């Protein structure tokens, strides 16, 4: 019914170029708002760009299309990457990105369903997205619908107990229409994941919960990201988790692996430098 307006699927080369645009949006939005979370937005840029410009069957002009694939940004603080991809695929004018975090804006500090059409879940309180994804995936199975559901979590987010309640449940329900992606950028707000709450072997953990595990060596390599999503689509009888090893702050030299930029905006000078680098 809306296939004519479905987003054109970009090639890997095109996706790589698009990711540069998305990164520029992220930095400009956060600089303009003088607040926000650049580090975890930049680490997830390849993942979200690949989804919105290639993997997802979606129609930006008809965000409530019932057969659309669903994407939930469980790590809600990384919403600049989501907003950029939504704007660039046509959900709303790119110009509106400038209202990020401003009063009366639809582009909230963390995503909200009732503010912006196309947002599938109100997130920002970590740990909740995968449970919602299970409901969406199980609902599809019960009703014979073919859409797929994607949930992006952080690695720090895996501290939340609810994630493991949902991991156990999705494995038990054999939800092969559900994909979780862990943006494993190795940092959380207070410091390194290995120091705050080490996760030990993530593949072993998800395996033990009944998931098909795909680990990507470089989650900022577009080819590897696209390949992982395509491989996940072929798996039957199990949900798939893509563990993407990423770099926090990827693409901006002074932000890479610098946790000072977990939740801090660049100064005007830093912005200028970032935009010089992102070409």
């Amino acid at each position, binding site marked *: 019914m809306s296939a004519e307006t479905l987003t054109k699927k970009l090639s890997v080369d095109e996706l790589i170029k698009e990711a540069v645009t998305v990164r520029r949006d992220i930095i400009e939005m956060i600089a303009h708002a003088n607040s926000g979370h650049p580090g975890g937005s930049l680490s997830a840029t390849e993942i979200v760009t690949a989804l919105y410009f290639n993997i997802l069957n979606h129609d930006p002009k008809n965000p409530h299309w019932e057969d659309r694939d669903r994407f939930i940004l469980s790590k809600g603080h990384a919403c600049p990457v989501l907003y950029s991809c939504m704007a660039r695929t046509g959900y709303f004018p790119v110009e509106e990105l400038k209202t990020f975090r401003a009063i009366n804006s639809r582009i909230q500090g963390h995503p909200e369903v009732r503010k912006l059409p196309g947002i599938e*879940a109100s997130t920002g309180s970590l740990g909740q997205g995968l*449970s*919602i994804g299970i409901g969406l*995936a199980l*609902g599809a199975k*019960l009703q014979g619908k073919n859409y797929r*559901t994607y949930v992006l979590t952080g690695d720090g987010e895996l501290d939340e107990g609810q994630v493991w309640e949902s991991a156990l449940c999705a494995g038990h329900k054999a939800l092969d229409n559900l994909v979780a992606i862990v943006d494993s950028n190795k940092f959380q707000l207070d410091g390194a994941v290995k120091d705050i709450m080490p996760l030990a072997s993530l593949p072993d953990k998800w395996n033990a919960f009944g998931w098909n595990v795909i680990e990507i060596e470089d989650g900022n390599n577009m080819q590897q990201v696209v390949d992982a999503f395509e491989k996940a689509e072929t798996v039957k009888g199990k949900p798939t988790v893509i563990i993407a090893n990423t770099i926090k702050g990827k693409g901006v030299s002074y932000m890479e692996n610098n946790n000072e930029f977990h939740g801090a905006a660049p100064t005007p000078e830093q912005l200028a430098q970032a935009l010089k680098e992102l070409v």
Partner: protein
Amino acid sequence: MALEFKLGKATRDAYGEALVEVGQEHKNVVVLDSDLSKSTKSIEFAKKFPERFVNCGISEANMIGMAAGFVGSGMIPFASSFASFIMCKGFDQIRMSVANPHLNVKLVGSHSGISLGEDGASQQSIEDIGLACSLPQMTVLVPCDETSTKSLTHLMAKHEGPVYLRTGRPKAATIYKDGDTFEIGKAKLLRDGKDVTVIAIGLLVIEALIAADQLEAEGISVRVVDMFCVKPIDIDMIAKCAKETGAIITAEEHLIGAGLSGHVAQVVAQTTPVPMEYIGIDDTYAESGKPDELLDKYGLRAKNIVDAIHKVLKRK
């Protein structure tokens, strides 16, 4: 002569029966429970529609999120657990995954109040109404008997938006007759009176009627209102009762202040300030015991309402 009344089914049993009817009527209803379906009675739905029943295991947080996801898939989820567990353990999930996006999720908490008895304070829910009412645009329903529970279960399936329904473990006195109708936001006037109004919910409704009956012999005319919909609360009914009877008592199996009493007092203060007294759990946890013993010990009986009425009338 004491007021005569019949005991009907427990409200949780009535819920279980009505849920089957709702499942027949609405093919897109899905029911979730967190390993308490035998107690919440959602098992009745599970027996009839196993393909539309999801046992989430003992994980309330995940259950609430799943319910939210089911809405996104085009279904109407009913999620149940004990009132204390669904509301306290699932609260942030209800807040962010359900209330913030204002999703059409139906939450049902059984074993509410202290009348579940012997299991003690960890299972007794005395905070759930306060928590549910604190969420923007959440509808909060507290039926008092079998008939109203069944009607409200059907009503919440048709109502668009998040709803919390509170049910109980013990058999409940029959207050309504078949065919009585209910509307969200409209309280039920059960007995007219002119000296004082008792606004009650749940098991306290029959206690209020008993108190009113007793006081009639003393020449005190007591009005009784069933405020089965605590949110949105019936402002017009409260203001009218305050104006016409000049004194208000609230009665509930819940902490005073956080639940019905606070919400009624807010309306009274704003519309028609009159003296009030409150019957409920007074800033404490309860304990193990037989339901009747607990209702006696924690002051949730007709005699406590009678005492409160005498007290409030002196302040008129």
